[in-house]
């Protein structure tokens, strides 16, 4: 991909998954209309989901899922050693995701309940950056393929990548949705980072904050407005905890 004055190289790409549903990796194969072009940007060195060929000379690793077993820690550390750029891919990787809901229970209790009498290892769920350094995060449950495409293109072209800093409401308004607060629901749109094109609120369900907090959010004002409207605090707590993405913010508030 040599151009006058520019040199672009395919990304030596690898994709790995840990504790997750693999939905984010699946997105890599979605948006079929541009899929061949998208794959054309990648030199796939290791991607178990779609290829049985495996090489360990990748530069960039997309890591999906959260960490909940000791063998995963070892695998992740090996990936970090090899990869020049390690991307936390998806909400599980960025924040722990829904898997973190398990952490509400005493360590060992879930395993004892589901596999009575068996030895099943399961550590408290951690996000990738709790274990190794992350160079870039692509949040979303699942990730938005359009955004992923843009980010991959910018990795190839060497332009710096950035996620939107503003909240989901911007995109929600652009889609002319009726605000869910007007319908009497709590929506995390005002505090959640945009970039998903407000897909949930457009489907008329509340944003659950899978993309994590937007930049510099006004949490006190948000909590205040939920209270003022007489909406259920319990509902709010359940939503904030859903993807574990507001953990850091909540810790600051209290």
């Amino acid at each position, binding site marked *: 991909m040599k151009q*006058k*004055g*520019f040199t672009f190289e395919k990304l030596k790409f690898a994709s790995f998954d840990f504790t997750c549903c693999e939905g984010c990796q699946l997105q890599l194969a979605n948006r079929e209309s541009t899929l061949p072009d998208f794959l054309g940007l990648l030199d796939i060195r290791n991607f178990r989901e779609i290829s049985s060929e495996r090489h360990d000379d990748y530069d960039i690793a997309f890591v999906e899922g959260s960490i909940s077993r000791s063998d995963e820690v070892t695998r992740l550390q090996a990936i970090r050693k090899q990869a020049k750029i390690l991307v936390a891919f998806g909400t599980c990787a960025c924040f722990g995701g829904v898997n973190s809901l398990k952490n509400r229970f005493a360590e060992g209790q879930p395993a004892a309940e589901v596999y009575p009498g068996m030895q099943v290892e399961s550590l408290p769920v951690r996000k990738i950056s709790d274990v190794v350094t992350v160079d870039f995060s692509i949040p979303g449950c699942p990730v938005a393929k359009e955004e992923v495409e843009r980010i991959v293109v910018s990795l190839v*072209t*060497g*332009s*710096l990548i*950035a996620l939107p800093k503003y909240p989901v409401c911007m995109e929600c308004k652009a889609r002319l949705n009726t605000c869910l607060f007007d319908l009497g629901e709590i929506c995390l749109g005002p505090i959640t980072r945009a970039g998903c094109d407000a897909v949930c609120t457009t489907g008329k369900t509340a944003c659950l904050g899978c993309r994590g907090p937007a930049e510099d959010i006004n949490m006190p004002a948000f909590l205040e407005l939920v209270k003022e409207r007489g909406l259920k605090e319990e509902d709010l707590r359940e939503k904030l905890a859903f993807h574990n993405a507001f953990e850091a913010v909540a810790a600051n508030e209290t």
Partner: protein
Amino acid sequence: MHEVRFVIPRQEINREDFASSAPDFNRRSEVMNTDRGFKCSITNIVRLTGQEKLFQLRIIDPTERSLFRFKPGQFLMLELPGYGEVPISISSSNSNHEFLELCIRKAGHVTTALFTIEEGAQVAIRGPFGSSFPMDEMAGSNVLLIAGGLGIAPLRAPLFWINEHRDRFGDVNVLYGAKVPSQLLFTYQFDEWKMINHINLHTIVERAEEGWTGRTGMITDLFEDISIDMKKTWAIVCGPPVMFKVVCSHLDRLGMPMNRMFVSLERRMHCGMGKCCRCMVGSTFTCVDGPVFDYWSVMNLKEAI
């Protein structure tokens, strides 16, 4: 029940639509072209420091090249297709109709990409935009040019102008400060300015490095070195906001009238045409009303400094 007689015909827009407000866009009366860039080829790239490079551009189309004129102090929007557009001051002489020079610091998205391109790459420019330094009004007086860091970039155009019309000016003092000596730009031109153009150049750095024999301190320290008649002198000050605020109030104390001090403001910009509103300072557009303002106006702009 689709009926042809009720179909609204499509209307194209044309030049006449804008006849009532013939825009002054680099003498191109065709407003339709304000979004179209002049295609340029990068003819030379000089690395100045670790952070700055000087790009030499040549407008490819000869007609466009001959049409392009600018005034010292104006800027243009530099487009790198696929990456984005950034406002950059023109850093070369406005009598040079062959090439343009842009001194660019690697700062973010687009500028980082600019640092990876090689000679021969094609970019585009829109503009020139914005206000300029009142070179004609300054003629006949002394001039004080004060630059901090990258502020020397927009100062180069007026300096070229002064050098090319040297007999019209009295004393010309250039005060130039940087953090460390290795960040001083255009050092290779210093001798030329001093010897040939009889410019009094004073440099200062905040922190000395090995081999530096010059002064260290703040830029305002340099005022101790010079004696100027504040009543007969015009000043142009470019640099980070903190710097020009300090310098201008210093000049004010020394008795220079505020409307003879000029500064170039920097704000985020996306269009260059007073439409995106990103560069607003109070209720003034940096891109059309500025970037060059006299200090009196800046004092009156809310949130300027």
